[in-house]
């Protein structure tokens, strides 16, 4: 009997130890995550928009000097406001204090003249500069704009606002949307719009901010042929539907006079993973081919009737490189990297156009831009502009219009995006991206300015 009890006791003891260890291991994470938020935000001085929350404009210079607690508590309301401001705001350098004050002044003025500063563009005469905020921001999403975003982040965090930490992981548009909807990231990157149902049910305040444009092109590998081929909507749809199966097909030969297309089977290569590139490609094919629309349709992952699958832009590019007779659709940069010629694609006006950056940008000319900041994501494939490359699209940064809780983070993010929409556009062409046309860039900035935290706009910057 004693043996039984001892055995029992031993089992109980070891079980208790094991469960205690397990519990401590599990509970340590959520408990420990919260306190990390506090040291990030709690510092001394203030930044612009908090000042708008304080009713008296005279409170602005005070707010910049809240480091001294010796100030007599003349009005309890102001001190309360100051207290929250101190908690939420973060170190501003002494030199930028004046800037903050002027920004605060313009902010209050804007708030007084137009309570919804969204519709009326506020053109301030002062030169805008990003605030020196301390924040850690993370985002994930589309791989297509990744090189550009990395260049932006590098320059921005090294030379413009060194106190901010930004990271962007290229995990693909689909994953980026999922992470953003689940509130796992501060911002998302995507080449295609979030499904409207998902927006309504999960992230009703998501805004798609167009940042830059890119083209998707057919990348062709036929041994011995280096001249850029010409494609029409019909031949592209035919190849991917499996109707055109040989490079010497008369429909292809008709457009490519002077090119000796060989008797070689066509191997279409498509993306096997869910991707923004596929979404752009199938959106285009659905617009130009009724057959495609009825048989396959558009989407970020569709079942292709013909060809072989490969994962990622890099996978498609590699498969095309290794297969004689293959054609695959990739973002233009991948073809450039592999040293492939840019093809011609016949656009809606009947012109054969290469996906050069100015032709890609032209695809957005003359488009209707919605005044609703939540409806900026639009398809611009098969554009009617004469010199437009027809398979073009915007790539977006996803932000939340109302549900940011950390003012400091939201301000730092808005500053970065604004910087990307202004100064940052200078990097686009140098990296092979097409800059946004002026109307879209303006619309994107206006949409960014509708972002608020507890009702207070996070950025007040001129639309320029």
């Amino acid at each position, binding site marked *: 009997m004693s043996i039984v009890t001892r*055995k029992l006791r*031993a*089992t109980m003891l*070891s*079980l208790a130890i*094991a469960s205690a*260890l*397990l519990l401590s*291991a599990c509970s*340590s*994470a*959520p408990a*420990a*995550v919260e306190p*990390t938020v506090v040291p990030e935000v709690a510092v001394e001085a203030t930044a612009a928009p908090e000042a708008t929350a304080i009713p008296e404009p005279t409170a602005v210079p005070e707010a910049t000097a809240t480091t001294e607690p010796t100030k007599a508590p003349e009005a309890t309301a102001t001190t309360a406001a100051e207290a929250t401001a101190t908690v939420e705001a973060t170190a501003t350098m002494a030199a930028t204090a004046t800037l903050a004050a002027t920004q605060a002044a313009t902010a209050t003025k804007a708030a007084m003249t137009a309570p919804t500063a969204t519709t009326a563009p506020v053109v301030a005469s002062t030169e805008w500069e990003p605030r020196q905020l301390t924040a850690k921001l*993370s985002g*994930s999403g589309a791989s297509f704009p*990744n*090189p550009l975003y*990395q*260049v932006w*982040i*590098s*320059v921005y*965090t*090294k*030379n*413009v606002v060194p106190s901010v*930490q930004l*990271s962007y*992981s*290229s*995990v693909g548009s689909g994953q980026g949307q999922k*992470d953003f909807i*689940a*509130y*796992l*990231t501060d911002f998302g990157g995507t080449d295609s719009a979030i499904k409207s149902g998902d927006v309504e049910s999960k992230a009703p305040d998501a805004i798609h901010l167009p940042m830059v444009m890119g083209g998707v092109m057919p990348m062709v590998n036929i041994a011995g042929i*280096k*001249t*850029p081929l010409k494609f029409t909507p019909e031949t592209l749809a035919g190849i991917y539907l499996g109707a055109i199966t040989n490079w010497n097909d008369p429909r292809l030969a008709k457009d490519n006079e002077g090119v000796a297309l060989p008797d070689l089977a066509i191997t279409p290569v498509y993306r096997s993973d869910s991707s923004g590139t596929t979404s752009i490609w199938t959106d285009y094919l659905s617009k130009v081919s009724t057959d495609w629309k009825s048989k396959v349709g558009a989407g970020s992952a569709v079942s292709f009737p013909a060809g072989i699958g490969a994962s*990622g*832009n*890099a*996978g498609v*590019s590699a498969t095309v490189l290794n297969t004689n007779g293959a054609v695959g659709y990739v*973002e233009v*940069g991948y073809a*450039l*990297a592999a*040293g492939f*010629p840019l093809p011609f694609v016949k656009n809606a006006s009947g012109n054969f156009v290469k996906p*050069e*950056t100015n032709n890609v940008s032209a695809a957005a000319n003359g488009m209707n831009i919605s005044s609703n900041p939540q409806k900026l994501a639009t398809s611009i494939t098969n554009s009617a502009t004469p010199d437009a490359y027809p398979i073009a699209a915007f790539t977006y940064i996803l932000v939340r219009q109302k549900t940011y809780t950390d003012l400091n983070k939201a301000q730092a993010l808005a500053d970065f995006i604004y910087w990307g929409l202004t*100064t940052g556009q*200078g*990097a686009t062409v*140098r*990296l*092979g991206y097409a800059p946004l046309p002026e109307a879209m860039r303006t619309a994107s900035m206006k949409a960014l300015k509708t972002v608020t935290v507890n009702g207070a706009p996070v950025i007040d910057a001129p639309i320029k």
Partner: protein
Amino acid sequence: MRTFNYRRRKLVDQLMRGLSALATGCAVIPLIAIIGYVLTIGSGAMSWSFFTDVYQPPSNAPEPTADAPEVAYDPNDPFANLTVEPVGDPTGSTEDVTNVYNAAPRGGVLHGILGTLTIAGIGLLFALPIGIFAGIYLSEFRNERFATIVRFCCDVLSGSPSIVAGVTIYVLVVLQTQQFSAVAGSMALAILMIPIVTRTTEEMLKLVPETMREAARGLGAPTWYSTFTVVLPAALPGIVTGVMLAFARGAGETAPLILTVLGSNIISTDIFKPMAALPLLTYRYTESPYPGENTQAWGAAFVLMMLVLLMNILVRVATRKSGGNSR
């Protein structure tokens, strides 16, 4: 007749011996091929800055020299170090086009090295106490019914795909805390490490002669005392080997990290935020359009292999000394 029989037996012996040697050779070939392949391609990325620098975005700026130092930051043209010529159509030949796409790789993987060490290290902190205590239980109370169940569960766990651990932590921790974090990655890795630590600890403790336990008991030591002062020290080198195996397994995992730590391009000191890791860098760089980064993917894989190898050797050397002393 006897000679024929003898000759036949000798022949069979040689044949079987040859086949075994061949099989051994076949088993080693992939290892050598992998190391050789990673080494030859990855060496293209090797430089001093590969180990001391973090991620640098692509640029075709010339390497800074004494005569032409690096372009200083110009607020009016922040991207001066990128090509001034727009990236156009190379029309076939890439040799004469120096666009940013065929620029040499820049930057390094220091953030990945530190990240991998941090994530796998914290994972080990989670896994060690659980694994070792479970191992002690399985070995010292091996006949209990609960032990059989635990042993079975352990084997199932060690055979489960690593992505399952990633998904589990993604749902239980990442979605709950609404934050990708290095700690979440460590937990996912700990799930994979626990069965390895448990089973090796158990096996190593079983190897300790029963007579040692009996001797301790004979001197009046209670079970816990003999376990901690006699059995455990005797099995220590073996247990450490198991721990190293667990570390290597964790350090090399990609799938659970994709869902939990997200990755980063900077050195992150905050373990409750996304962090970089070598396997993640390898994975992401292979997807890059820049050939320079594709080379760096091989480089990162090489560094990861060397890191695990180095840790193994260091720990082996360390435990050989201490193991000798304690005995």
